[in-house]
């Protein structure tokens, strides 16, 4: 028998369930109980494109050190799905644990000699205690949470508190849930003492952080950022963003006196219509956004081009997923970077923001609404399924009450009346950003006819070459101005002098930080730069220049950010080495560490030892 894995506040538990069996809330209860004990966790849903019946997994990484990326490997498998049994058993680390329902005996061939098996007659217990078949199913989940809490040493008071909060005002549900938990807890206290070497110990590592999914966070950012119009079409993994916006607006945007809504949400017939509605609202001066994913962006590209050339504010939150059709789209990727950066026909390029976690989803969603109006252009918030649909521990949301919305350059009726020159596409300030007017502003002045490209600086119809060139050159200047407004890249400096650099973005952040430490332990030091927006600032160029080689870590096959760095920032591709992860699972620190270690070895570069550091 292999040695047992013994760990305190540092292990991975994976639940293998059947979709639609009610496991989600029980598993979330399990994850949250660690947070209440001051121990950070990072849970992830791995789910199929299905409502009921297909396999679904929930992976909880317990990590006192606060590594919120996916670790890889499983220390304890809670195998509740016969369909995926073989695969689930295979995934357990040697010396790890398998927890299962042993109501029906299984042949020895179904197990592994190098793991520790913990059986519990869950079905029997449910059948003994409940008559209703749905209850038998639902409470089975709570019973195993009780048993795990006992074995791991989760404080029962913490679970009772969480169940109390969940069923506040629903006393009928509260008591049976507490009972089911007790049932499992007491069984394990009696029969499974010391079965598990994985332990929780109260810590103080959570602080004031919040636990929220990126889609809800981005939706709240849109509420705070002043979005009044949301048009969307359901698509995984972005649907919960629009639904969260609806929920938050219902709480925060209903006029107290009249009951009237200071928001309008339209579930459109398709993504063509949803972006059309956003463009129409933006043209008319309301803050508007849509939430979508890759295929939606594909459908929207014609409008995105129009909005770029007609200079209309629009915010598009792209919760990225694994490509077209169905299936892989319930997995995560960062594979729409180029599709969004250059979306549409003609010479177009767009502002992209890359949030790392729900905190930045909130912040960037609100900021995107400012940027879209300041720059009069579409702005993408490039989140992904990993951030969007998983609850993540992050800094609390922040808002400064003195903050004013940046409505950009809008000419008022008074200015028009005073005779101020209005050229809709005229660069008067040298920043490439023209003035606009809202429809209905002034009886005689300021009206214009909005078109794509066929116009002069005063918005009159023109097919003249010089007018076109003036206009698109001004758009380039505006893109330069955007560099000064978008979030700056963030540097994580190596503790030791480093000849390597690492560029990463978005949901790769937590895994990258953990990998940097693992690499440093091996004597490989790298300065790391988290890119937070496109267009790239000069600092990114300087960063690449000041390192021998720079790794670009991405979650896509084609090195899309690297392509932008080469193509748009003029960076020499010989200086960049791609580290690419694109199997649909979130990137792990182990993956990054292994890849970079191998490349460094292959480069035959002698690692700098700490004692020999220059």
């Amino acid at each position, binding site marked *: 028998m292999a040695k047992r894995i013994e760990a305190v506040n540092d292990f991975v538990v994976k639940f293998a369930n059947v979709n639609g069996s009610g496991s989600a809330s029980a598993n979330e209860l399990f994850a949250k109980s660690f947070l209440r004990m001051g121990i950070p966790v990072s849970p992830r849903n791995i789910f199929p494109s299905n409502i009921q019946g297909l396999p679904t997994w929930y992976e909880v990484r317990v990590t006192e050190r606060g590594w919120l990326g996916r670790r890889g490997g499983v220390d304890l498998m809670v195998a509740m799905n016969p369909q995926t049994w073989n695969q689930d058993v295979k995934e357990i680390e040697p010396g790890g644990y398998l927890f299962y329902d042993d109501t029906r005996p299984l042949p020895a061939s179904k197990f592994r000699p190098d793991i520790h098996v913990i059986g519990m007659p869950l079905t029997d217990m449910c059948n003994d205690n409940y008559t209703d078949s749905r209850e038998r199913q639902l409470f089975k989940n709570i019973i195993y949470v009780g048993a795990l809490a006992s074995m791991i040493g989760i404080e029962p008071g913490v679970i009772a508190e969480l169940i109390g909060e969940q069923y506040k005002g629903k006393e009928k549900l509260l008591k049976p849930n507490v009972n089911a938990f007790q049932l499992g807890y007491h069984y394990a206290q009696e029969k499974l003492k010391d079965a598990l070497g994985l332990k929780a110990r109260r810590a103080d590592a959570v602080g004031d952080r919040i636990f929220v999914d990126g889609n809800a966070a981005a939706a709240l950012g849109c509420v705070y950022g002043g979005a009044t119009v949301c048009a969307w079409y359901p698509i995984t993994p972005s649907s919960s963003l629009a639904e969260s916006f609806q929920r938050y607006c219902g709480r*925060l945007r209903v006029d107290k006196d009249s009951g009237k*809504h200071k928001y309008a949400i339209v579930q459109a017939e398709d993504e063509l219509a949803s972006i059309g509605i956003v463009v*129409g609202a933006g043209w008319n001066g309301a803050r508007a956004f849509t939430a979508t994913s890759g295929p939606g962006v594909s459908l929207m590209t014609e409008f995105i081009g129009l909005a770029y050339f007609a200079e209309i504010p629009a915010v598009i939150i792209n919760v990225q997923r694994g490509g077209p059709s169905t299936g892989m789209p319930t997995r995560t990727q960062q594979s729409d970077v180029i599709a969004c950066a250059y979306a549409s026909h003609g010479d177009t390029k767009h502002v992209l923001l890359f949030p790392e976690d729900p905190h930045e989803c909130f912040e960037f969603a609100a900021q995107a609404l400012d940027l879209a109006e300041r720059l009069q252009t579409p702005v993408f918030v490039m989140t992904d399924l990993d951030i969007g649909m998983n609850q993540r521990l992050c800094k609390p949301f922040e808002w400064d009450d003195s903050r*004013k919305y940046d409505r950009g350059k809008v000419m008022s009726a008074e200015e028009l009346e005073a005779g101020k020159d209005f050229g809709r596409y005229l660069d008067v300030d040298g920043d490439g950003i023209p003035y606009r007017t*809202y429809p209905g502003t002034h009886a005689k002045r300021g009206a214009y*006819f909005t078109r794509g490209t066929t116009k002069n600086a005063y918005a009159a119809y023109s097919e003249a070459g010089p007018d076109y060139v003036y206009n698109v050159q001004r758009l380039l200047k505006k893109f330069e101005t955007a560099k000064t407004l978008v979030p700056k890249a963030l540097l994580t400096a190596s503790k030791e002098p480093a000849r390597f650099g690492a560029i990463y973005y978005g949901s790769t952040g937590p895994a990258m930080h953990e990998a940097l430490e693992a690499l440093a332990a091996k004597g490989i030091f790298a300065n790391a730069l988290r890119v937070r927006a496109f267009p790239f600032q000069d600092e990114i160029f300087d960063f690449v220049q000041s390192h021998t080689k720079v790794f670009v870590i991405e979650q896509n096959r084609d090195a899309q950010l690297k392509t932008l760095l080469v193509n748009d920032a003029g960076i020499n591709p010989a200086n960049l080495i791609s580290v690419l992860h694109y199997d649909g699972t979130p990137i792990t620190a182990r993956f990054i560490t292994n890849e970079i270690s191998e490349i460094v070895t292959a480069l035959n570069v002698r690692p700098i030892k700490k004692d020999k550091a220059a």
Partner: protein
Amino acid sequence: MTYLAKPKLHHPSLQKNKVGYTRRDYEGKVSTLCAGCGHDSISAALIQAFWELDVEPHKVAKLSGIGCSSKTPDYFLGNSHGFNTVHGRMPSVLTGANLANRELIYLGVSGDGDSASIGLGQFAHVMRRGVNMTYILENNGVYGLTKGQFSATADKGSKAKKGAINTDAPVDTVSLALIMGASFVARSFSGDKAQLVPLIKAAIAHGGTSFIDVISPCVAFNNHSGSTKSYDYVREHNEAVNRLDFWPSRDAISIDYSEGGLIEVPQHDDSILRLRKLDSDYDPTDRITAMNHVARAAEKGEVLTGLLYVHPEAEDLHAHLNTYPAAFNRLGEKELCPGAGVLEKINAGLR
């Protein structure tokens, strides 16, 4: 193309409407469409209707898709904001614009390619949602800008200029609008200004989605014999169900009852529609009747014109969404941002 430049100065004796504008103030740029194009007649009818309605031009937003018809908003209401959007997608852009500021009047101009082919989906859904707008479809059964291809409203068996016979069944936009829930549905003919102007006025006054399909012959590509959208064909087959008078408000009604067959339809804004029925059993407030009449006329090869259906108490999208009365584009952080205190409470709930 019309080459006559429009003089900028108005004659001082030109008649002004109640808001102080002459009819010339409702004009736009010189049309670049072919001389004799039905679309220019529709633009003229729009100018007349807005002037007669005493609407300040800048209080109108005019949006269109792509095509000959969609170019026309540049040729009227020069002091209104206009938006030439993308092909077939005017309805969604107009919906967003309407949500952003409910205080303006929204006019959507589209063509048969724009609405019945590439934009059929958006056409149908804007009717479903009840966006408060006037939707003018300038219907010539042909693609003009790309030189003469059939559109989806071309009748089966009709002949293209180059001789091809259309074998596909036509999309009847009026029937579709009725099915999808438009609350004001009419059909007219660009050559019949006496019918068209009151219809446009009534459509603008209507508080929901008003749809007018205007048969508008294409003099370049669809005005030959064998076409069912030519001037001659429509004049010969036009079957009007009613003649319309539009009264801006109840006060203005002069008692002028003519003999039988007169219906008065009060509108949400207190204006009155008076319909002189030409067909004795036609009731324009009954949607099912309207659909039957349209279908029967089509079978006989007639073009049924007039106000086909009106729901006097129609609600619009803003009512459905229960939106705040002030225009969204005027709301700022004071009205929209819940503030740091509330955010702290939200944070507390996420721990």
